[in-house]
């Protein structure tokens, strides 16, 4: 099972960090038998079986591929615990948009998890777009992740993390 790094603290401030977390969720493939407990399913499987799963008192997450639109989950979001956004390659930047839309437009407050080709070099971008959990593919530790996410003391644009941006710092 991949190791999970979770953000701790408020990413809009200076004191947030990251730590290893117990991952209670199992990634379930489309043809796998359903295990007990909390699961992360593909969007297609969730759309087929989600109603039943959500009603039997377990937590449910959905894995969204980059060519799928998070808007498809709009009505189910309040009942979802995790949306896992896939990075088939780290160069594929579509999940950054998906994450921002989940946070800023669809108001999702559950976990937004980065899965796939997830590298510490992306930490700053991911945190800013609203990701709060990561399955690193490069063996990154929470310490490395925290350091990478804090590398820049200033940011120039508003995003999902609600960090104070350069023009707001200047206005003070």
């Amino acid at each position, binding site marked *: 099972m991949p190791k999970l790094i979770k953000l701790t603290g408020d990413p809009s401030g200076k004191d947030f960090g990251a730590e290893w977390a117990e991952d209670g969720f199992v990634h379930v493939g489309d043809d796998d038998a359903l295990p007990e407990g909390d699961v992360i399913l593909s969007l297609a499987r969730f759309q087929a079986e989600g109603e039943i799963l959500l009603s039997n008192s377990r937590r449910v997450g959905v894995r969204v591929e980059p060519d799928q639109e998070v808007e498809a989950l709009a009505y189910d979001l309040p009942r979802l615990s995790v949306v896992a956004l896939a990075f088939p390659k780290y160069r594929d930047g579509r999940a950054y948009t998906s994450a921002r839309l989940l946070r800023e437009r669809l108001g999702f407050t559950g976990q937004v998890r980065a899965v796939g080709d997830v590298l510490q070099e992306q930490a700053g971008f991911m945190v800013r777009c609203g990701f709060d959990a990561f399955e690193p593919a490069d063996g990154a530790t929470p310490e490395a992740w925290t350091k990478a996410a804090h590398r820049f*003391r200033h940011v*120039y644009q508003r995003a999902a993390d609600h960090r104070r941006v350069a023009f707001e710092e*200047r206005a003070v």
Partner: protein
Amino acid sequence: MYLYDPIDREFLIDRSNEFRHQVARRLAGELTDDQFKPLRLMNGLYLQLHAYMLRIAIPYGSLNARQARRLAWIARTYDKGYGHFTTRQNIQFNWIKLKDAPDILDALAEVDLHAIQTSGNCIRNVTADPYAGATAEEIDDPRVWSEVLRQWSTLHPEFSFLPRKFKIAITGALTDRAAVKVHDIGLILRKGRDGQIGFEVIVGGGQGRTPYVGPTIRSYLPAEHLLSYVEAILRVYNRHGRRDNIYKARIKILVAALGAEEFARQVEEEWGKIDAARANLPASELARVRAAFAQTNFEALPAVSETFEAARAASPALQRFVRNNVKPHKQSGYAIVEVSLKAIGQTPGDATAEQLEVVADLAERYSLDDLRVTHAQNLVLPHVKLDDLPTVHAALEAAGLATANIDLASDIIACPGLDYCALANARAIPIAQDIAKKFADPDRAEKVGELKIKISGCINACGHHHVAHIGILGVDKKGEEFYQLSLGGSGAEDASIGKILGPGLSADKVAPAIDALVEAYLHIRTGEERFLDTYRRVGLEPFKEAVYAQAD
């Protein structure tokens, strides 16, 4: 000029520290070359044929003297004593050692320069009219908006891994010196019916393998909405641009596939969902940026300078320089001076450390500490008093920088080509040098008039050959360099894509062919027609005959 504040400076220091750390990991063997590649590319460091090349961003082509001197120092300390200005108004150093790169970035950061986003699939250096703030034609200063976009796009968390690179250009004047119609986004400042300022928004122009003149997707966008609208364009592109084929990944392919109307509809729909109050720049910050560019230190001068008139009357060289390289300024008693980096026989766009220092001194003493780079790979002293023109001209002449050939046949744009570039199929620089020699006689060059010749060493079109009056594309034919000619392109306000003239020519036949094209033009032109106008009137045929009849 916009001056970096402590926030901008700390940002560059953080960036430089990050890269130093990454280089150390690479040199210690903790990162493989494959893992290191995207990291160095994000800092403008390419591995070329012979060495690393470092591309340094010059936002909207604007430099002060201190920055230009630092570039000269880098050329001398870490390169072979020269730098190469590019069609994105940037500068490249072609002989860099990896171990020196972090020190160079530190040296750049000290003068508010950097190499952020000069490579990679992100929003690249925003380019603008090099006459910004100096030309009377201007509706608004494009540097204000370029700087706003520079900050907004710097390490943008959502748009740093786009399908492909993304280039934005802005002009505030109707004469387009920024090639806005062949950019991913081209912005033309317009005055609205209500007297307010806005943008015409052009999306999906481009060059490369599939050249397009971009369509206008919005004829008027109120200026204060720029950031939210650009965000909408980038979001539609980030989500729907192709990622399966690198050659079909630019936004122009998406716009062409959807059609401009449907693309515009999707952008408008997305724009409608964006919280504009959060996405747009607050008026107070816009005012801060605008104030940085407000030039208040012009002197009140008469329109005619006796010093200048007397010097001009006595010097045919100065007369020629003024005819070709000096442009009208919005302020009475001032002029815009173009500094050609296209001396006959020179590598187009190259400047030596000594030349950079001369131009830096001139900018400081005679041009309000302001220096510009043009997309045609020349430099501009934007604010020179007419009184000072003779002195400036003499100083340029002494440094080999007074070639009076702006927009003439020898003012050739050329990519680095096979002499440097790992992607090139053919050399571009020697072809440019050969052609320039044909127009070494300045009387002949002036008689021919405006003629934009542009050379690319491969299909990626860094030399802008598609939008040249005469374009030259180097191709590899069974291990031999061949050159395909095209006619009738333009990157200006009358933008068009050139048409291929006929079969490719070997390297030694190119300059004679250009000669034949020019002779044909001189023969058939009427009145004040430029080469481009004549071509548009008569078409390819007479030119084809001139080149290929001679070859038979």
